[in-house]
């Protein structure tokens, strides 16, 4: 089977609008999580959020998208996809070819528009311009039509591991010869829907999140998008190659809709399967971009699963301490960060960590360091027990 290579990246998060800006902020240990005052929710100014500091109007102007029915989620996705496609120098005929696939993910999609949705479901008008925006496939459909994609188009939703699975599916299409290249990634925007949802579960931290810290108080929600261009090795000759997507693992925790089992069977099996898929041994993983949301449940269970699989786990940290949990975008953004780890041979500090969890005593990396990295693992776990691990290798 052909190797699957990353030849283009585009991303936007609360700490930057390009991979370079994000890298700079990660090196400096910047945190994009602030007490926003612009979100249309009563929690604006009360809880901290990893908000992308670019207004929806500015995104519309920048992308020249002024038609009706365009959501902030779609704009963030279009922005990151444009960057990725141009970074990989895909031309119009490649985009329109039957062997170019598009696999995206979003958990919120058009649900960011609560007021319009409320009116439409109650048929209070003849329909808002957003009727086609609420369904789960709306972002994928929007990207498909923007680029005229004729190959396989798909949208995945496994909650917080959605975009890790979008990357997995794109890689499989290439490995099995169903596509030569795949544009893969995910997006989510901050919304009253998810803010109230996570708040009802009492897992939103009133302060900046502290992944893997004994005193962690929950997660912060964030927003953003990241898209990668994956190409098969034979087609990537002469191109800029960021990294290889060496393997993936997907497993279900089969325990509870919104929390992980004590021993972390799902996370353990996903990481184990990724290693076997990439044909790597445990001692070959140099760094883990952990799921590390900052909730009581996740961080302890993920630690246990790392201890169970690795014995003595490799270096790890969670970039959610910089940008919060971006839900449907997190798997893709963190995949892009893993690629940055490899291309620049460096790891970034997990922020706000002071004391390890007493039961597991694992300490994330807390400073930016240049170190040789060959293989980096990126973890994403979601509601419904959907766990996915990706492994990127130095090209």
């Amino acid at each position, binding site marked *: 089977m052909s190797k699957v290579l990353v030849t283009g990246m585009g991303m936007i998060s609360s700490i930057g609008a390009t991979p370079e800006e994000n890298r700079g902020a990660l090196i400096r240990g910047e945190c994009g999580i602030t007490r926003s005052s612009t979100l249309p929710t009563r929690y604006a100014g009360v809880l901290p959020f990893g908000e992308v500091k670019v207004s929806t109007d500015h995104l519309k102007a920048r992308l020249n998208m002024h038609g009706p029915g365009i959501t902030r989620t779609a704009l963030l996705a279009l922005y990151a996809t444009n960057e990725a496609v141009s970074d990989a120098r895909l031309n119009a005929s490649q985009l329109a070819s039957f062997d170019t696939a598009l696999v995206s993910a979003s958990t919120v999609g058009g*649900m960011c528009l609560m007021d319009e949705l409320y009116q439409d479901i109650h048929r209070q008008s003849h329909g808002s311009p957003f009727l086609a925006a*609420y369904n789960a496939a709306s972002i994928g459909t929007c990207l498909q039509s923007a680029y005229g994609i004729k190959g396989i188009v798909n949208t995945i939703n496994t909650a917080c591991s959605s975009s890790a699975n979008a990357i997995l599916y794109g890689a499989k299409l290439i490995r099995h010869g169903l596509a030569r290249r795949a544009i893969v990634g995910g997006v989510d925007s901050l919304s009253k829907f998810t803010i109230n949802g996570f708040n009802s579960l009492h897992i939103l931290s009133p302060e900046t999140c502290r992944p893997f810290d004994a005193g962690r108080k929950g997660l912060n929600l964030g927003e953003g998008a990241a898209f990668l261009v994956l190409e098969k090795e034979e087609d990537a000759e002469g191109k800029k190659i960021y990294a290889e997507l060496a393997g993936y693992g997907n497993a279900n925790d089969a325990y509870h809709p919104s929390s992980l089992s004590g021993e972390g069977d799902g996370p353990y099996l996903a990481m184990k399967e990724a290693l076997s898929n990439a044909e790597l041994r445990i001692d070959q993983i140099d760094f883990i971009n952990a799921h590390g949301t900052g909730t009581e449940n996740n961080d302890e269970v993920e630690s246990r699963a790392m201890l169970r699989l690795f014995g003595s786990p490799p270096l790890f940290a969670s970039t959610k301490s910089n940008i919060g949990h971006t839900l449907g975008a997190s798997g893709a953004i963190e995949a892009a960060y893993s690629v940055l780890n490899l291309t620049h041979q460096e790891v970034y500090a997990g922020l706000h960590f002071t004391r390890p969890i007493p039961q597991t005593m694992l300490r994330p990396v807390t400073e930016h360091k240049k170190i040789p990295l060959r293989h980096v693992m990126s973890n994403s776990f979601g509601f419904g027990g*959907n766990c996915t691990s990706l492994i990127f290798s130095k090209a």
Partner: protein
Amino acid sequence: MLYIHLTACISPQSSFPEASLDHLQRSADNKLRVIEPLYEGLPQQALRRMAKVVRIGAGAALPLIRQAGASCLPIDGIIIGTGNAGMEQSIQFVQQIVDHAEGILSPGDFVQSTPNIVGSQISALTKNKKYNITHVHGGLAFENALLDAAMQVMEHPTHTYLLGGVDEIGTYNYNIDFLEGWYKKEALSNHQLYERGTPGSLVGEGAAMFLVNQQEQGALAGIRGVATLHADDPAPVAERLGWFLDNHLAEGEQIELFLSGENGDSRLSPFYEACEEILAAELPIARFKHMSGEYPTASAFALWLASIWPGGADLPGHMLKRGALPLPGGETSEPGIKMGRNVLIYNTYKGMQHSFMLLSRSFH
């Protein structure tokens, strides 16, 4: 090739546990709602908390998983396609946010609001910790799930997967598609679905589940190919169908039946007509949307129909649009022509998403 070994379907017709399709169950209030079984195999306490989409999905899947377990066939993953699972709970949660002005809310609806709820509940109920994924790309959600299963068995030739397509009619998500013009405004019964020539269809719902692997022996049917396309014009769709058939049929091989996703929406008829035009003029055509109604994963219902069809004239009369099917035993084989035991399914969702599936119902 991906082989179907077991299948079950909960639909608006008498399809579960055994199919009895000659008598057409009627729609009510322009909707084709599923006939829900008693779900004797589901834990009753869990059942009370389940959304309908989870009940029908798990209700159709669990008997298959049990049957597989009885013959020591482990399930190596759960691959679900759904257009709208979780949507109704999302809207319930929106209602809570509005009613309580973002105050103290109950998390139940939020937790059940993600589309992976069906696959993850089946996984939790059967303690299945293997591959688990949910494809949600609208009218191609099931086709992507099918492709995924095909890739999984290519990577793991001994594995068996649960593959399913499931959607529900939600009180409110119906309103969104209704406002967008996808359902008939006038009152209509499903037995007249194809007669009106007006825009819109009748909404439907259902869960079709399949156990699939690479073993030919003992299989009900084999899926020889699946292709998908986004297009808003019939010409590229017909062109892609030509390519699909050239790629999957051997020289001189024929199709036995064209199962068409026609749904009574006058705006979508040109897509089905364009496909009919490139197929042999005498090819029998059958339709199924008057049985299932229209929903994103209705093509899973079509695949279920095709995989249980024994062939020949044993097809409910109300399905046949054109042509005649040979009586059992009346088949003749002309020299040089392989008997067509292939069913072609073409479906479009909203005239934007298109899929072809080619199923071979006998391969001995």
